[in-house]
């Protein structure tokens, strides 16, 4: 029955000494097999949340259950059920990739033949077989990230925490990692809790997204529903002849509310769904109006963030999250 559990969080708080509430009473639920994107700018509370859910930081208040286990009272059980690749790539530069995997699988008490088999499988899966016997200090950033992911998977966890896994990666490495994350969730049913500050990443990978700002979750839902919540798409046309602007505006008025666009263009927020674009094209054609450019702007998660917080997510990074102050555990 444990496999039926994902993540349940209620009123989770983390307060640092002499600092702000990094996480301030968040509530969230992640279903088994789901990819949950936890989106927010730097310092929003994403990493602090991950540290609490992975049992590495005791919460100040609230409860969280991961894989059906309480993160405070059942830490060892939580740890046996989860894998985590935290924000900083946590590798020993003097060990090889294969040595990392052997050590990690040994510490997870895997039997010796299983350790070898699992290490080889993971090295192959993350494309590090050839580099497996090289010391990690010779790896590129992408290779380190991939090894970090492999280490998180060594004991076949049911829930995977990935804290900004693609930060600093080149597009090719990022795409490869996205592919792997998608495969884990859809192919193997692993629940993925993914923090990111990249809109595209959350939009592309996540089944549901939670947007966190200043320690509060300000919006939650599927990317599509969040975007639909804040409005419809906008179509903007750039006329071939400047004198056609008025005619285009008259046509556009039939499809929605005119919006301020570029100085030479005409824009309309569609009253219906995105199929309005096809109707606009037909109408322009029917009235023989020529345009040099016609573009559809769908609402993005950044628009959602803007709507909910009054700021744009891109460039909204505040101060970094306070570094967790080590405190003794009270359990």
């Amino acid at each position, binding site marked *: 029955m444990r496999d039926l559990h994902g993540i349940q969080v209620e009123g989770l708080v983390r307060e640092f000494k002499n600092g702000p509430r990094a996480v301030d009473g968040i509530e969230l639920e992640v279903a088994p097999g789901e990819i949950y994107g936890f989106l927010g700018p730097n310092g929003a509370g994403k990493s602090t949340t991950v540290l609490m859910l992975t049992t590495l930081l005791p919460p100040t208040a609230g409860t969280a259950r991961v894989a059906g286990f309480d993160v405070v009272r059942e830490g060892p059980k939580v*740890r046996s059920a989860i894998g985590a690749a935290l924000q900083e790539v946590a590798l020993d530069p003097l060990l090889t990739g294969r040595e990392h995997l052997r050590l990690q699988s040994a510490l997870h008490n895997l039997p010796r033949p299983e350790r070898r088999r699992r290490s080889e499988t993971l090295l192959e899966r993350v494309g590090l077989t050839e580099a497996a016997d090289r010391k990690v200090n010779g790896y590129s950033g992408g290779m380190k990230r991939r090894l970090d992911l492999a280490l998180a998977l060594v004991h076949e966890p049911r829930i995977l925490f990935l804290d900004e896994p693609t930060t600093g990666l080149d597009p090719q490495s990022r795409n490869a990692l996205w592919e792997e994350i998608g495969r884990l969730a859809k192919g193997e049913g692993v629940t993925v809790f993914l923090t990111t500050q990249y809109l595209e990443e959350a939009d592309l990978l996540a089944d549901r997204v939670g947007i966190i700002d200043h320690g509060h979750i300000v919006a939650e839902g599927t990317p599509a529903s969040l975007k639909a919540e804040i409005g419809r798409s906008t179509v903007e046309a750039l006329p071939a002849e400047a004198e056609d602007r008025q005619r285009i505006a008259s046509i556009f008025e039939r499809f929605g509310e005119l919006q301020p666009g570029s100085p030479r263009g005409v824009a309309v927020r569609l009253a219906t769904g995105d199929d309005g674009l096809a109707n606009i094209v037909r109408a322009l054609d029917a009235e023989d109006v020529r345009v040099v450019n016609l573009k559809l702007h769908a609402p993005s998660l950044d628009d959602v963030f803007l709507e909910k917080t009054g700021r744009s997510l891109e460039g909204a990074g505040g101060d970094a999250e306070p570094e*967790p102050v080590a405190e003794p555990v009270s359990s």
Partner: protein
Amino acid sequence: MSALALQIGYLARRSVIRTFRQPASVFFPFVFPFALLAVNAGGLDAATDLPGFPTDSFLAFALAVPFLQGALFATMNGGTDLARDIQTGFLNRLGLTPVRGVALVAGQLAGVVTMGFLQAVVYLSVGLAVGVDLESGLAGGIVLILLATTIAASFGAIGAFMALRTGSGEAIQGLFPLLFVLLFISSMNMPRNLIEIDWFRTAASINPVSYLIEAIRSLIITGWDGQALALGFGIALALGVCALAASGFALRTRLTRT
């Protein structure tokens, strides 16, 4: 074998591998103490003419010092390695496995203990090769290596505590001169009863490093001196136990996993 022993074994293997992949961690502990020994033995040889000096070979008298210097390097290297684990987040990665805290510290010390053992073998071998007579014989040589390894492990535990307390490799490096001062205000170059300056003699008498040196020295120039050995082993073990206990507390604060 118990799970704890296995965990210590895995981490010990890593610690040893890592130590020997850092040339500076291997080279300097072997070379530097011999350079200082050569300078001291050459410059202070006349001290053997002092009435009451326990031997007529200053080289034999001073041979105990490299063992302590090697242990100091062990403190620094072991501590720096652990601090690096904290800084890179590797300690958190280990903390996400079922590994027990005691295995983390004990495994970490394995590299230090291995280096301490090898250093002791080399220092003793070189000493014998250049003509020092080991008054306690072959058995004494074995005890000497055991004592030197114990001292290295204890000093390594101090380095581990500092690393867990500060989480900073720089702080560990900063500790090195302080420990070096402790070495210099000990009986490293002169028997305590022949130190004429009162404050220096007092400082050397309350400095535990003096008793560690004297225990090693007794095996080289005296033979079997039960009191010196008891003090040496006792202080080394007491330091080690205290440092390990302190490391345990520091680890609980550093790694706040539930």
